[in-house]
């Protein structure tokens, strides 16, 4: 951006800020009230999008936190200094979000939506119970000396804070982590991102803003009862505004707030009794008309990729087994998918796992990477027991993997996919940079391309680069060479050999016998959940048991 243009933009920005700050001085009552509405919806919508935007977890609970904040102000407003009231509201919002988040964020997205839908109703009933039994009257009066002007300025300040926090969040590693979680939570977990904790943190942050907004707004009403404070229409309006304006970026929601607040003003004036109906019809129309559905509104916010974290340790030397799998089994309601599998992997080896489809190979990998918990047996990585650890913890310990059905984070660029694996690296030392890794797998020229636009082969390469970005000691490849034509296969085999030469230890599940022969020093053959043969590839592939179970005939 050139000098003069920059100065111009700065001047325009300052002028806008000046207008906003002095607004109460020249706007009359009606317009001031409108301004207040725009501001408080902006805060609510931006806070909503802060969580729901990147994670795609649609929260219908905005008014639950807003109402709690309003009620906190009503309860404490007469007796405590105002800053304390605001702090208390923030605390109440955060605590409620923490409790509800802990219970529901581990569940699938749709259960979260449902629970958030009823949350406001639940809290409303709890507040009514409290008011009836403890306070002995429902409905409170809030006499406050707060003028409209002061209200406006408080909201303006809060708006500035929410944008500032949103911006900082976006530029921090949590911003990219959030988008990675929203794009593909499993891939994110396996890249070392603690999805549950991050979702919870941002959920609490978002709820805190909503609660403080409610507290600030409370004096406007003078009289508060649960029906007023917990009006579900507010949750609904916030969702529409944020989605319409664009939930994927920080300044998107405000673009939806302004026109809709004006529209709702017009509606309330002309059709006061039919507000709900018209609101509902508009929303249904919007969702139906969207070509990509509501998900399409989330877009792919382009936030800056933070510099990668410290790089990882060099491969361990020595003959002690890197991975020790001992008697591992995994059952699914009576079906033994993996049955008493044991093997060890020494550093620098490539181990092949082969067997017919349905023999339990992928399930075994899933127990190793933490996607599944073994029903029995022990798994040790460098002496540390992995049983019971979650996927992101295992990833941070240095065990990376690719997936049978390739999992890239579609809305992130190639570079961002790799960077996501670097965000929470706990190892120190030198190692390849993201660019070097991308060059290694052949994606050096595609760094800014969105991952969803890559070819299937390139997506596989990206997955490998992302796994390598974890600076792992052990990589699990789940049919990584599947679907390649002969020349791609040669390149792929050469790449894996190069990785081994650089000190990486690899376990590969494969059907491509050429690759097994070319790369593996040791093979395990699985059938119906158990190991039926092990040894060097040549020996194993001519073992009559293996031939009968798998190859079904002479292998030329």
């Amino acid at each position, binding site marked *: 951006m050139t000098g003069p243009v920059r100065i111009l933009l700065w001047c325009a920005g300052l002028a806008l800020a000046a207008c906003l700050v002095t607004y109460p001085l020249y706007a009359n009552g009606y317009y001031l009230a409108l301004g207040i509405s725009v501001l408080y919806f902006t805060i609510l919508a931006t806070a909503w999008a802060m969580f729901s935007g990147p994670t795609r977890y649609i929260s219908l609970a905005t008014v639950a936190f807003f109402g709690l904040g309003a009620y906190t102000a009503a309860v404490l407003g007469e007796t405590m200094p105002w800053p304390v009231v605001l702090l208390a509201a923030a605390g109440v919002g955060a605590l409620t979000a923490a409790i509800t988040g802990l219970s529901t964020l581990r569940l699938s997205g749709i259960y979260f939506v449902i629970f958030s839908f009823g949350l406001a109703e639940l809290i409303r009933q709890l507040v009514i119970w409290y008011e009836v039994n403890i306070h002995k009257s429902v409905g409170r009066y809030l006499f406050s000396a707060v003028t409209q002007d002061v209200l406006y300025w408080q909201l303006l300040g809060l708006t500035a804070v929410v944008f500032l926090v949103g911006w900082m969040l976006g530029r921090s590693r949590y911003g990219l982590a959030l988008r990675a979680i929203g794009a593909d939570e499993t891939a994110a977990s396996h890249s070392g991102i603690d999805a549950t904790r991050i979702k919870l943190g941002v959920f609490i942050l978002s709820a805190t803003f909503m609660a403080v907004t409610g507290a600030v707004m409370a004096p406007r009403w003078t009289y508060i009862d649960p029906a007023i404070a917990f009006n579900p229409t507010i949750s609904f309006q916030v969702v529409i505004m944020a989605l319409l304006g664009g939930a994927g970026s920080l300044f998107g929601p405000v673009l939806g707030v302004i026109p809709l607040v004006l529209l709702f003003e017009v509606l309330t004036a002309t059709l006061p009794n039919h507000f709900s109906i018209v609101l509902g019809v508009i929303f249904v129309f919007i969702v139906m008309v969207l070509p990509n559905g509501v998900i399409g509104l989330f877009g792919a916010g382009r936030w800056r990729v933070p510099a990668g974290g410290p790089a990882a340790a060099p491969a361990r030397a020595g003959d002690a087994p890197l991975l020790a799998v001992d008697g591992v089994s995994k059952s699914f309601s009576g079906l033994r998918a993996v049955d008493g599998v044991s093997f060890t992997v020494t550093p620098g080896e490539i181990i092949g796992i082969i067997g017919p*489809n349905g023999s339990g190979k992928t399930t075994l990998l899933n127990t190793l990477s933490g996607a599944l918990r073994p029903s029995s047996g022990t798994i040790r990585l460098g002496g540390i027991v992995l049983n019971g650890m979650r996927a992101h913890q295992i990833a941070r310990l240095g065990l990376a993997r690719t997936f049978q059905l390739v999992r890239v984070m579609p809305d992130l660029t190639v570079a961002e996919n790799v960077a996501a694996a670097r965000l929470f690296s706990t190892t120190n030392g030198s190692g390849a940079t993201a660019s070097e890794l991308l060059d290694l797998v052949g994606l050096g020229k595609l760094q800014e391309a969105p991952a969803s636009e890559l070819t299937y082969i390139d997506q596989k390469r990206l997955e490998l680069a992302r796994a390598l970005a974890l600076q792992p000691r052990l990589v699990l490849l789940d049919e990584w060479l599947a679907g390649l034509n002969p020349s791609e296969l040669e390149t792929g085999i050469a790449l894996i050999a190069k990785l081994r030469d650089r000190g990486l230890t690899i376990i590969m599940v494969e059907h491509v016998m050429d690759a097994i022969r070319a790369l593996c020093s040791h093979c395990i053959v699985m059938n*119906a959940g158990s190991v039926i043969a092990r040894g060097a590839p040549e020996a194993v592939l001519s073992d009559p048991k293996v031939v009968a179970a798998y190859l*079904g005939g002479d292998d030329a």
Partner: protein
Amino acid sequence: MLEVAALSHFYGKHQALADIALAIGQGEIVAILGANGAGKSTLLKSIAGLVKPAHGATIRFEGHHIGELPAHLIVERGIALVPEGRGVFGDLTVAENLQLGAYPARARAGEADRLARILRLFPRLAERMAQAVRTMSGGEQQMVAIGRALMSNPLLLLLDEPSLGLSPLLSREVFRALAEIRSSGLSVLLVEQNARASLDIADRVYLIESGRNAGSGPASAMKNDPEVQRAYLGKARAAPSPP
């Protein structure tokens, strides 16, 4: 009876099938061989109507174009697919699964006879009619899946990896059943990992590689063809020795 021409399909950017052509006649067993990921499953799903082929494909069955039809109408025309992973209704019983097989209109007449024949083909099922299918072994589930497909009174049976996850013993039973099915006049299009067994039972073979036709011919000739061994069985070759 079935003619496929210029069949292509894309999963997003990935081209799974490119200009596939094949034909099947009455009472034939045709096998499709190819490496994993070569597009064989997608081919069967395209014929069965579960995925829509790209523009320009021709799929003709008994003289009618079926490329645009939804899956449930293709079943009415007489094509039944036994999908990879069996696709049985796990929470329902064997009897209910087989009864559902006869849901299409073409399968109602003679339903009882057909059921009797299928139970003769797979005696194990007769003993377990009230059992929930998800509690049965892989092999038994495969029998339920094939039985259910046969209940729809098809002219053409499509099988996607029927011996998937089955022990050699159960695989043999499944292939024995396929031979018997062919002898009743049905045509069979088979995609199978177990190359030897499918070459033994098929009349003709098509090779698919990276989504394209890579050859075809009578099964007897294919068995000894080095191309087949390369594409499907993975021949040994001079390779850098592992450390």
